[in-house]
Each structure stands twice: as structure tokens, then as C-alpha cells.
């Protein structure tokens, strides 16, 4: 099926999310939609999927105009979508999830669960998904959940499959498998729209690339473009893809975690007996797929989550048992994972958000009264220093873009003299400019001699920022590796990827030497410097085709 979008426009209030976007997806092609966070990619796809009504423009299927009043219409027309945040009910089984909305039923609306199971097994077997129809969604790893989403779309005969940031939650190995699945689907004649901001993946898989910036199509690119070319097209200026930093000058281990465990109310072990230390003047990145205990680890350090066992010492002094305020004032800076709910109070002004931590101390307060003038003056100074773009410091912080709001959080957390900086997902959802700024600030803090912990699920960020990398899997630390070893060799992407799936360090190194992933192969020198397009021949996954490093590769025709 040929899909055309003509002049699609979608306006939210004063924001033009999509500005006359044209897009053509040919049958059986993998079409990448490349753009920064907030460029309008997801809005466009939600219009296509019938979730949003476009303000202007039309959708053509095989040349005939189509209007979708809701997702049901889009599905009936052969459009399937795998959302970035999966549309799966956690307490349902796989069969129930796939059946939902299209249930096979007998008398009195009673479900024919056997038939629902059969549907799942049929598609699962055809594409080698290995999905158990009776497993509960919440018990499945995200990679498998994603396959359930794909099965959902395929079971409704999708001819065009939209994948919205499908790799955001996957380990590199799972990403490899996804790329394999995408190729198989393409062979079977399904068109795929692949939404992403990750340059490496686009080059590895796409047949055609459309780049979107600030709601407009700014150009088409071929997959043989270099990462730098794609990045400058996406951002609108030339950008550096690496983090500028000098080798760390680590001092004493000034932050130590020993035997720490966190157990949820239902008995699930979230953090399982982990120990590590961070030295002054180094960045320790905690890598891992979302939901492997990193969030809880960060929260225990601040004190908003309770530890069930173990100890944490800052400068030799135990901090468990102290209150959050006490910990903050003893020099912990904390950038929470979810900026909008935990980082700022969205109805408060920018100025107020900048003193959330110190509002009750001099010079911002005298006795029971606050001093608005000092608070405002402080805000002017901080926003200047952290390059926050705003209209007035008295505006609610919700009027700021994600990048600027994050800068406010950083400005607040870094304005105290720090003895430890903990930042969870500090660049999630930010544009490239803000990411560069955040990374620069984090490195500066390190160079000032502060121990820094960065929790990140983005492998590129981890590789760019870290001096040492701790990989977490199911609440445990699989291993801690130096970002650059004593021989000056950078840690291998594939090794980290395997560790993120729970493979211990030695085994991961061995496996990585035997088999290079699609994405690892696309950047063999692993230094983030763009190289020529390299694509392994034949099937990418599952088989150990490449027996020696470097992988046998060939130029794409």
C-alpha cells in the first residue's frame, strides 16, 4: 500500500506542531522519519493514526483520500502503530492484549481464548518472535512487549507499520533483533515508518530518510549520508557528536555504597545487594535498560526511597537515616528522572522553582517571610549563568520548553556547593543544543572535583560522558568497567549491550568478539566519529556469521 501525506498541519494553541508536512511511503519500504525531540514526528504519526484531527491537509492511501475519525478507522485501513509508550495493559496476558478490541467471541460475548492464543502463536511462529501467549505483559521484558505490539498490528493485517521511537527502551542486542524483524516484515511487503532521533539506526536500516525540524520537512537524505550530515540537517547547524572532555583526574573514593538493597512493598527486589564507590572528580555512569533498579538506586541516595539493607557513605559519613533536606544541605545535588513531576512544580514561577531547595534560608527568607526581591534577583543571575531562555522569571515554569526547564533544574541543583551530583536521565527528551549544554555542565562539575553519578539508558550518552560505567540488570550491578582501559582502548558498545541483558563482563567480551551487532558494526571504531556506511551482509541477527573482528562488511550497493 502506498501512503501519502499531503500538507498535514496540526496546531496546538500557539504551537504549530506540524506545518504543511508532505510524506510519501512507497509499498515495502522502510522510511525513516528523523527529527529531534519535539520536532513534531509523533504528532504527525498520531494524525495518521487517527488520534489527532489534522487542522489541514489530507491522507491518501493508494491515491484515494482517507479520513480517520479514530484509531479504529486507521486500523481498518491497514495502518498499525507501535507507540513509544506501549499500549498494553500490564495485567493482561499476551493473548488478551492481542485480542483486545477485536475479540473472538462465542455465545453471550464469552471470549474464545483458544482462538486468541492461536492468533498469537501463528504470527509469533511465522516471524520467530518466541512469545508465550499466556505470559502476563508486566512479567515480560520490554523487548518482548514490543513484539507483542507488533503482533497486535500484524494480527489486524497492517500494511503500513508505524514504529515510534522503537529503540528507546531496547538493549543494543534487542535493537539488532528488531532490525531483523523490520527487514523480515519488509520482505513480506509491509511498509514501515520508523520514527527516531538516533542517527546510527537510521543509517543501518532505512531505505529513505525524511528529516523534520520544528514541524517542517527540511529535506530528504539517503542512508549513505554521514552521521554529521544527518545531524546538521536535523538540528539546522553543525553539531559536535562527541562530548568534549579531558581524561578524569580522580581523587579519593568519597562516595561509597555497600550491600544496598531495596525491596518493593509487594516483595519484588528492586535493588539487590549492590556495592560501588565513586571517586572525587570522576563520572560514574549507571547504564541499563529502564526499570532495572537505577531509578530506585538514585532515589535511595536522595532519601525519597527507603533502603532495606546496606549502607551509603558520603565523605565517610553514613547518610541513610538522614532526611532529604539534611542530605541536600550536606552537598548532594539531585536531578530527578522525571523533570515535569519530580524536578519542578509546574505551576510555580521560574524564580520560585529556583529556590525550592533553599526557600527557607537566608537570604531568601527572613523568619517566616520570604523575600521576593532576592528570589527574583537570584533567578536573574542563575538563568543568565545557565542560559535559560524565558520571557519573565515570574512566568510559570510550565511555559518553558523541556530543555530550558531542565536547565532550571540543573541551575538549582548546582547552585549549592556540591559534594556529590546525581543526575537521572539528565538529557531525556531534550533537543541537541540542550543536551550539549547539560553534558558540558556535568563535565565542568566533575573537573571541579565533585563525584558525579549519571543514570542513563542511552548508550551513546553513557559512552560519551562516563569515566567508569556500572551496568545494572534486574537490580544488580552486572559489572563495572572503565570507559577507557589502561591501553587507551574504549569499551566496546556490544560488550555493554550484552551486559545490559545480564551477561557477565567476561562472557560479554567473548561473545562480542565473536559477533558484531548491526549497530556496533556500523561504527566499528566506536569513537562516535562517523565512518562509511557499513552493513553486514545477509541476516543480521541470531547467527554468528562474523567469526572474527573486524566483521566482514561490504558497501551497500
Amino acid at each position, binding site marked *: 500500500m502506498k501512503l501519502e501525506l499531503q500538507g498535514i498541519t496540526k496546531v496546538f494553541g500557539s504551537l504549530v506542531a506540524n506545518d504543511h508536512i508532505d510524506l510519501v511511503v512507497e509499498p515495502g519500504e522502510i522510511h525513516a522519519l528523523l527529527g529531534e525531540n519535539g520536532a513534531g514526528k509523533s504528532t504527525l504519526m498520531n494524525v495518521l493514526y487517527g488520534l489527532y484531527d489534522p487542522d489541514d491537509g489530507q491522507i491518501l492511501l493508494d491515491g484515494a483520500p482517507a479520513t480517520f475519525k479514530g484509531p479504529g478507522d486507521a486500523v481498518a485501513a491497514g495502518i498499525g*502503530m507501535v507507540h513509544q509508550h506501549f499500549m498494553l495493559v500490564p495485567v493482561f496476558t499476551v493473548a488478551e492484549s492481542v485480542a*483486545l478490541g477485536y475479540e473472538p467471541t462465542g455465545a453471550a*460475548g*464469552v471470549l474464545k481464548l483458544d482462538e486468541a492464543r492461536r492468533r498469537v502463536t501463528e504470527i509469533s511462529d511465522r516471524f520467530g518472535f518466541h512469545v508465550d501467549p499466556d505470559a502476563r505483559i508486566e512479567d515480560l521484558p520490554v523487548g518482548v512487549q514490543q513484539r507483542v505490539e507488533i503482533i*497486535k498490528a500484524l494480527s489486524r493485517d497492517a500494511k503500513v507499520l508505524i514504529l515510534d521511537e522503537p529503540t528507546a527502551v531496547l538493549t543494543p542486542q534487542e535493537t539488532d533483533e528488531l532490525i531483523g524483524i523490520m527487514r523480515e516484515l519488509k520482505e513480506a511487503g509491509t511498509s514501515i515508518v520508523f520514527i527516531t532521533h538516533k542517527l546510527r539506526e537510521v543509517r543501518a536500516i532505512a531505505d529513505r530518510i525524511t528529516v523534520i525540524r520544528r514541524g517542517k520537512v527540511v529535506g530528504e537524505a539517503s542512508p549513505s549520508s554521514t552521521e554529521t550530515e544527518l545531524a546538521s540537517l536535523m538540528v539546522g547547524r553543525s553539531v559536535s557528536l562527541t562530548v568534549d572532555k579531558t581524561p578524569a583526574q580522580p581523587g579519593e573514593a568519597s562516595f561509597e555504597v555497600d550491600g544496598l538493597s531495596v*525491596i518493593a512493598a509487594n*516483595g519484588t527486589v528492586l535493588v539487590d545487594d549492590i556495592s560501588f564507590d565513586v571517586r572525587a572528580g570522576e563520572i560514574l555512569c549507571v547504564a541499563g535498560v529502564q526499570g532495572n533498579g537505577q531509578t530506585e538506586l538514585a532515589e535511595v541516595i536522595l532519601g525519597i526511597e527507603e533502603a532495606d539493607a546496606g549502607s551509603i557513605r558520603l565523605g565517610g559519613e553514613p547518610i541513610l537515616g538522614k532526611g532529604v533536606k539534611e542530605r541536600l544541605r550536606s552537598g548532594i545535588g539531585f536531578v530527578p528522572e522525571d523533570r515535569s513531576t519530580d524536578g519542578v512544580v509546574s505551576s510555580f514561577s521560574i524564580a520560585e522553582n529556583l529556590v525550592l531547595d533553599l526557600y527557607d534560608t537566608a537570604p531568601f527568607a527572613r523568619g517566616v517571610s520570604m523575600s521576593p526581591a532576592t528570589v527574583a534577583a537570584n533567578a536573574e543571575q542563575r538563568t543568565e549563568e545557565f542560559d535559560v531562555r524565558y520571557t519573565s522569571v515570574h512566568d510559570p515554569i510550565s511555559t518553558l520548553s523541556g530543555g530550558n526547564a531542565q536547565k532550571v533544574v540543573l541551575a538549582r541543583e548546582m547552585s549549592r556547593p556540591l559534594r556529590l551530583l546525581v543526575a537521572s536521565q539528565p538529557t531525556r527528551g531534550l533537543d541537541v543544543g540542550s543536551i550539549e549544554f547539560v553534558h558540558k555542565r556535568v563535565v565542568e562539575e566533575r573537573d571541579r572535583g565533585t563525584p558525579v553519578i549519571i543514570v542513563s539508558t542511552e548508550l551513546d550518552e553513557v559512552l560519551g560522558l562516563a569515566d567508569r560505567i556500572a551496568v545494572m540488570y534486574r537490580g544488580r550491578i552486572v559489572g563495572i568497567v572503565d570507559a577507557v582501559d589502561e591501553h587507551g582502548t574504549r569499551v566496546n558498545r556490544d560488550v555493554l549491550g550484552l551486559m545490559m541483558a545480564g551477561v557477565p563482563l567476561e562472557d560479554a567480551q567473548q561473545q562480542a568478539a565473536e559477533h558484531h551487532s548491526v549497530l556496533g558494526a556500523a561504527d566499528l571504531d566506536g569513537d562516535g566519529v562517523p565512518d562509511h556506511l557499513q552493513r553486514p551482509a545477509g541476516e543480521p541477527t541470531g547467527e554468528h556469521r562474523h567469526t572474527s573482528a573486524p566483521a566482514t562488511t561490504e558497501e551497500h550497493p
Partner: protein
Amino acid sequence: MSTATQPHQATPSDETSVQRTRPKVSLKSTIVYALAALVTLLAWVLDTPADARTTFQFGSSGDLFRIPNVPVPALGFLVVLLVVMLAATAFSFWRYRERRPLPAWVHVVVGASFVLAFLTFVGAGRSTVIPMVSLLAGALALSVPLVFGAMSGVICERSGIINIAIEGQLLFGAFAGAVAASAAGSGYVGLIAAPIAGGLVGAGLAWFAVTFRVNQIIVGVVLNTLIIGLTGFLFSTVLSDNKALWNTRMPLPRIRIPLLADIPVIGPVLFNQTILVYLMYALVIGLQIMLFRSRWGLRTRAVGEHPKAADTVGIKVNVRRVWNTILGGAIAGLGGAFFTVGSGLAFGREMSAGQGYIALAAMILGKWNPWGAVMAALLFGFSKNLGNVLSTIGSGVPSELLLMLPYVITILAVAGFVGRVRPPAAEGVPYTKS
């Protein structure tokens, strides 16, 4: 519900398991058991004369076989029960030391022992018998509106609407049932009017909660107050002016099911009831099946857990919520009919007396499952009836304190289980696109 006891402790380094769990254990149960044993010892065992007897009555007048009364030596029986409680205390402490969770049946054993000990103490040395059949029959009767209310709650909350208005639905159902039955001269007509009245209250809740996205708890409470005022006003004007026409007692006849009703003890309790109680059995069984095995149930749960996911597969979230709320209201309204036509009473001001809130608590205690909610409703009904029966027998405990029993149990039971229950994820959150 109870986790099976495992012969060996699972090794903590079980790498193959999908998700490692290490149960959070606490001494809460041990302490409660120890307190129960202590009360039994100090208040009852030491206070019971050695030669006193307690007589339990298991028969009822219509039995096929006459079951003789069972006299037991009070002190001996109390000591046995005390030993059971102490054993449970020790067992729970051992489980705590082993860091293993306590199976749910221990709670039941301790609870039953404690109640039996209390009954034994009350009946010791008295000529009156402890009437077990009427204790259970009364418990079932008092549970009926709770069960209907709790089923209403399950249907609404599983689709994401908090139904605090159960109280108002029960009351309006009781009112409409009484008035319609009285006017038509048949109790059965009341059973048609009652669900319509409850459904109307449900429709009001849905209208405000879904269309205007008003906080559901506030709308529910306001509706309850409105219904109390409305029925109270009509009661003191229209119903009092012509009592013969609008508010005559119109009881439903009891229907005795042959054979089943002849089963000793539980037969007369369960199978010599009005049509309303049989409808309740059908409702509970039907809802349990439909909720987990039908298209309606699947979509209802999807809408309550993850409305956006339901929307992306073409399910109309708000339409489903509105209909479920109306259906839930109708079911609570039918339950309300039990207060009037179901019990053979005329309508009285505020006769639902907070049962709607207890029904909601039963639903929570039952973990949003029909079966669980029924068990919880029976527990509340039993505790209430226990209070009633004991104040009739004369236990020495002030009757006002005994009347507090169901509410104390509600608070203890709900508090004891909070944290272990998981409500529908989207409960109380209005759904809007984008």
C-alpha cells in the same frame, strides 16, 4: 489467595526466575495473634468457672434431621482455642524469622477461634443457647445489600470510575422499590423500580464524572447527600400523607428450594430465601465469569487499567465508562430493594445507614474481585449480626460497643490489607484524548 507453603526455601540466587522476589515480612500478624490470645486468656479463660457449659444450637425448626444441641465444657473448649491461637502466634513468628509470608488461612483460623472463644465465654453457664443457624442466616441477610453494593463498585471501578454514590443508589433503590411495590401492590414490581432508580443515580454520577470531569469522589458524596435529602423530604410529605398508597409493607415471598434447603445448618441459611437473594447468587457468579472471560469484561478492565491503550484499538473509553456506571448504579439500586421489599419493611428515612460505604470497603478488601468482595461483605454482615445476637442474649458487653463491631472490623481489615491490594490503574482519572 493463599500462597502455597513450599517445603524448601527458594535459593535467593535463582537466576532463571523472571523477577526475583523477597517478601517483605512484618511482625504485624504475630502481634495481633498474641493480643487475641492474651484477651482470650485474661478476659475469658480466667473468668470462666470450671464447671460451666456452653450450648451451641445447630438445628432449626424445619430440618429433615433434628440436630441435637451441642453442650461443651466452656473452660476446656476455651483452653483448646487458646492453644490454637498460641500455636498460630508461634507459627507466624517462625515464618517471620524465616522471612517467609504467612498463608492467608492462618488469619481465618485465628479469627474463627477468637469468635468461637468469645461465644463460648458469653454462653458459659447460661441457660440460653448460642443459635448458630440464626447467627449465619442473619449474617447472610445483613450481607445482601453489601454484596449488591460491592458488585456495583467492582463494575464501576474496574472501568475506572470511583463509585462513592453506592450509598445513594442503595437508598434510592430502597425508596423506589418500596413506593412502586406499595402502589402496585406487589413486591416484585419493587424489584423493577429499584434498579431503575439506582441506574438514574449512576447516570448522574457518570454525567458529571465523564462529561464534566468533576472529581468523582466529590460528585459521589454530593449525590449521596442529595438522595438523603430528596428521599427524606418525600418521606415526610408524600409518603406520610398517604401511607396506605405509597408506603405499605409489601414483602417478597420466601421461596424454598426443595432438597437443597434440607441440608443441615447451611440449607435453611442459603436456600430458603427471597428471589432477591437468588438473584444475588446469580449476579456474583455471572459477574465473576463475565469480568474475566467475556468481551465486556476484557474491555471494561482495559478501560480501567490503561484507557489510552483501549482507545488505540478503537474502544470508546467514555461510552464504556458511562454504561458501566449506569449498570453499577442499577445493581446497587436492586440491592437497595432488600432494605424494603426484601426485608418486608416500609421505607424509613436514611434506612441505608452507611451500608454503601461499607460495601465500598468490602470491595477494596476483596481486591476488586467479585468473589473476594462477597467474602468481605459476609465478614461485615457476620460481625454486625454477631453484635445483634449478643445484645439479644445479653453478653455483659454494652450493646453500643457491640454495634461498633462491624465498623471496627472494617477499619482493621482494610488497614491490614492496604498496600497489598492493587486498584485499577486508571481509577478516578477522567480520560481525555491528547
